[in-house]
C-alpha cells in the first residue's frame, strides 16, 4: 500500500497522457451458465470487453439482461463458465477461492445499491475492514484519509443508523477506495438515494476517477447514471448489444461534492 499509493496516482495521470498503458479489464468470450434443476440458464453468452485504466464506464441493461452476472464475474465474486478474464494483465478466471479473495481485497472496490455496511459498526471501522484483511499497517490513518476524501471527516464515529443514505453510501465509497484498487464496481449506487444525494455520490465517483485515476464501472439501468460516464455498454440477453463512447457526458454538479449531506 504505502510503497505504491503515491506512485499509482502519478502513473495513472501519466497513463492518461498516452504513455504505456495496460487495460484494467480484458474479457474474452465470457460465458456463464447456471443450472437450476434440469434447466440451464445462459446468463452470459460470450461477452468480450476491454476497459482501459482511468475509464468511466456504464454497463446498462434491464433486469435479467445479465449485467449483474457480468459485474460478479468482473468483480471476481464469481467465475465464468468459459472464456478468459485478465485483470491488470493477470488471468483471474481460474484462480482459487483464496486467490480471488486476495484480488477482491487489493484490486477491486465494491459499491452496492443497498450500501452493505456492517450493522453497529462505526464509519471508521467499516473503512478499516478491507485493510484488516489485507494485513495493512497504519489502518486508522488510511481509513481517516479515505473518509476525509469523501467529506465525512466529522462522521468517523457514526454508525450506519446515525447516517443519512447519502452519507452511508459515501462510507461505502471510502471503504472501496481505501485499498487504492485499480477498479471500482458500482452496482446501482444511487438506486436507494434521493436525487440530491444521487448527484453528490456521482460527483464523488467522478472526482475519484479524475483525481485518483481509478477506473470506475457502473452497473445500472438508469440513463441518468449512465449520462455521467464517458462510455456506455448496453447488454441484453447475456450479450453486448452496443458499446460506444458517450458523446454527451454530463458531469455532476461540482458544487455539492464536498457537502456533508446534512
Amino acid at each position, binding site marked *: 500500500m504505502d510503497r505504491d499509493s503515491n506512485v499509482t496516482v502519478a502513473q495513472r495521470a501519466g497513463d492518461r497522457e498516452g504513455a504505456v498503458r495496460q487495460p484494467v479489464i480484458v474479457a474474452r468470450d465470457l460465458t456463464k451458465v447456471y443450472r437450476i434443476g434440469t434447466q440451464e440458464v445462459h446468463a452470459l453468452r460470450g461477452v468480450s470487453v476491454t476497459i482501459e485504466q482511468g475509464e468511466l464506464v456504464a454497463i446498462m441493461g434491464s433486469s435479467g439482461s445479465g449485467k449483474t452476472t457480468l459485474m460478479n464475474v468482473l468483480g471476481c465474486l464469481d467465475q465464468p463458465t468459459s472464456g478468459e478474464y485478465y485483470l491488470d494483465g493477470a488471468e483471474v478466471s481460474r484462480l482459487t477461492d483464496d486467490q480471488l479473495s486476495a484480488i477482491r481485497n487489493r484490486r477491486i472496490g465494491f459499491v452496492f445499491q443497498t450500501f452493505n455496511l456492517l450493522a453497529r459498526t462505526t464509519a471508521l471501522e467499516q473503512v478499516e475492514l478491507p485493510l*484488516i484483511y489485507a494485513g495493512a499497517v497504519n489502518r486508522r490513518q488510511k481509513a481517516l484519509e479515505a473518509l476525509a476524501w469523501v467529506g465525512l471527516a466529522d462522521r468517523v464515529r457514526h454508525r450506519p443508523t446515525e447516517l443519512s443514505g447519502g452519507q452511508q453510501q459515501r462510507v461505502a465509497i471510502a471503504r472501496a477506495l481505501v485499498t487504492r484498487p485499480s477498479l471500482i464496481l458500482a452496482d446501482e449506487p444511487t438506486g436507494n438515494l434521493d436525487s440530491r444525494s444521487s448527484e453528490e455520490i456521482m460527483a464523488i465517483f467522478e472526482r475519484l476517477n479524475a483525481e485518483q485515476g481509478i477506473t470506475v464501472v457502473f452497473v445500472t439501468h438508469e440513463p441518468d447514471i449512465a449520462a455521467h460516464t464517458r462510455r456506455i455498454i448496453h447488454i441484453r440477453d447475456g450479450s453486448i448489444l452496443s458499446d460506444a463512447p458517450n458523446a454527451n457526458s454530463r458531469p455532476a454538479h461540482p458544487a455539492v461534492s464536498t457537502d456533508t449531506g446534512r
Partner: protein
Amino acid sequence: MTVFESVRVALRALLANKLRAILTVLGIIIGVGAVIALISVGQGAQREITQNIQALGTNLLFIEPGARQQAGVRQQAGSFPTLTYEDALAIADEGDLPIVGVAPELGAYGQIIVNRLNWDTRITGTTPSYALVRNFQVADGQFLDQHALDARSRVIVLGPTVASNLFPDQDPVGQTVKISVHGRIGENFKVIGVTVPKGATGFGSEDDQVFIPLTTMQQRVYSQLTTRGLRNVEDINVKVASPTQMAQATAGIGQVLRQRHHVSQDDFTITSEDDILRFFSQVTSVFTLVLGAIAGISLVVGGIGIMNIMLVSVTERTREIGIRRAVGARRQDILVQFLVEAVVVSLVGGMIGVLLGVGIARVLSSVPVDGQYLQTVVSVNSVILAFGVSASIGLFFGFYPALRASRLHPIDALRYE
C-alpha cells in the same frame, strides 16, 4: 486478521445481542459449575476415606474369623467366632515374623453411667499393645497395662468424646463409672486414663469408645465361645514392621493359625490396610466418575445450545459474511471468526462456571448435614479439565456453524435478505 482482532469482533458480535449471549453462556456456566462441584464432592469423599483409613495406623493387618464352610455353605467372613486371645499370643510369640505389635480386640455396645449421666458407646476389650498398633495416645493418666490384663482388673480408659460427655467439669481419671451391657447393670470400673482425640473418621468416631482389659471383657462383660469352647476375640490387629513385609507377615500368620486351628480350610481372613484403601478408592473413583459424567451431560447440553445459537447467528449475519467476503475475507477468515466467537462464549462460560463450581463446593463443605461436614476438594486438575472441556466444546459445537458460514458463496450471501 489477527487473533486479537478476531476476539474483538467476536466480543462485539456477542455484545450486540446481550440476552442471547448471556443465555448461551449460562448453559456452559451450569455445565462447568456442575462438573467442578460434583467432582469436588467425589474427590472430597475419596480424600476423607483415605485419611480415615490411614488414621487407623500404618502397616496394619486385620485378622478376622470367617469364610467358614458350614454344611457346604460358605459363611460370611466374621460371622462365626474362631479367633482367641491365645491365637494372638501365639502370633506375638512367633519369633520369625516381621511384626512389632499384636492386639486382639473384642467389642460390644453398652452404656457407661456416672451418677445421673450416661453415654452409649463401644466398649473395646483389648491388650496394652493396642495403643501402639492402632496409634492411640494417652492425654491424661495411662493406658491399660499388663498387670491390669493379668489381674482382670476393672479399670477403664475413656475416649475423649466419652470423657467430655460424662465428666463435663472434672478430671475423669480416678473416678468410677458403671458399665451396662444388654440392659444388665454391671460393675464399677475405675478410670485410669483418657486418650488423645484422633478426629472423626468415616467408620464412626474412634474417639467415641472406651477401653478395658480383654480378659475383663471376656469374663465380666461379654463374650462368645468358639467351636472349641474358648472365649473368642472379634479380631486381631497386627502391626507389621515395614510396608514391604506385609506379604511375608500375612503368610507367616496364616501358617501359625492354620497349625493352631487344625483346619484344612482357613477359618480366618487376613486383610491389609492397603486392601481396604484400594477397595474404597475404587468405589470412590467410580462414584466421582459417575458424578462427573452426570454433570458432563449438562455440559454437552450447553454445547448444543452454543451450536444452536451459532447457527442462528450465521443465518442472521449472512449479509455481513457476504460483505466481508466482498472486501477480501477468505473462507478461512470467516471460519476463524465464527469459531473464535463460539470459543469465547464457552471460555467465558467456563471461567464463570469454575467460579460457580468452587463456590458451590465451598457452600457444600460449610453446611453441616446430620452434624457432619461434607469434605470437598477442588483440584487444579478438575479446573483445568473443565476449562479444557469447555474450550473443546466451543470448538466442537462451533465448528459446524462456522464451516457453514465459511462455505457461503459471496454472491448468495450479499443478496441474502
